[in-house]
């Protein structure tokens, strides 16, 4: 096991994956870019726990800040509006830039 992969402020993208079964990654974030806010915790993997398995070792969960306009290009409101979502680390990949 290596340490946490990300640091606050780092631009990331949520992987645009659509696996079958249970996961805790909202559809509206998939393929979207945001910035790391902080690491919440490490938690057992819900995609394993959904099938009665322990989901160990636990996975870091990061809070990611998304600009509303990245999530919804036709968003009506301020350019400064944001959504903050807890994302399990395997769903995140580093990118060069994020809005």
């Amino acid at each position, binding site marked *: 096991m290596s340490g946490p992969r990300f640091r606050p402020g780092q631009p990331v993208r949520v992987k645009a994956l659509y696996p079958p079964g249970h996961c*805790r*990654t*909202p559809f*509206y974030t998939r393929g979207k870019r945001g910035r790391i806010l902080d690491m*919440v*915790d490490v*938690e057992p993997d819900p995609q394993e726990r959904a099938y009665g398995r322990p989901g160990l070792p636990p996975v870091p*969960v990061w*809070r990611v800040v998304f600009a509303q306009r990245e*999530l*919804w290009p036709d*968003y*009506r*409101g*301020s350019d*400064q*509006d*944001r*959504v*903050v*979502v*807890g*994302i*399990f680390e395997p769903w995140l990949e580093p990118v060069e830039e994020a809005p």
Partner: protein
Amino acid sequence: MTTHDHEHDHHHHDGGDPGRGEGGPHRHPFQPDLEDGPYSWHMALTDAVADLLLAKGLIGADELRRTLEEIDAKNPALGARLVARAWVDPAFKARLLADVNAAAAELGIDAGGIPIRAVECRPGEHHIVVCTLCSCYPRLLLGAAPDWYKARAYRSRVVREPRAVLAEFGLNLPEEVRVIVHDSTAELRFMVLPERPAGTEGWEEDRLATLVTRDCLIGVARPRAPLA
């Protein structure tokens, strides 16, 4: 079914007092009993597990009842106490923002084992909480979530058009106030720490707490001092 149930005019109460149901041989529909709804898989599972725990003597019926009673006794006044203390005590506020569960314990409030974060509203920045995937809610701090919080309409719309949703709750935020929505998808819960309203200078903590409603703690409303 050969009775006359629905063959005649139900609203025709000859000579009787409609309010007392003496108008005729028929009865008005009752409000459905709880047991009239479908018995779902999860209800059956809950009952089965409870029965097993009792049958094996792992817990007693009174213990089970007491635990449910304690959970049901949780209510937004607990969260309001934290907010009021934070408004009058900056050091407490810092500890609340660092760790809600530990700060609650200072006031003798058991906020449970799931970590709760406080998100602070400031001038020019408003925070709202939702769980788009289900209905995660800090229920050991705020009590049971309102039905609308669990409804698909709120969950799907508040991340998509938070300003329109807030306006429907009666909170119209100007463009220069940024709106930040917190989606509690992982094992983390949120409470909003609202701004202390103007006109409450010199108020005691207990009085301040009365301004902090459940909806203020979710972020669909702001505490307001009553008009003088």
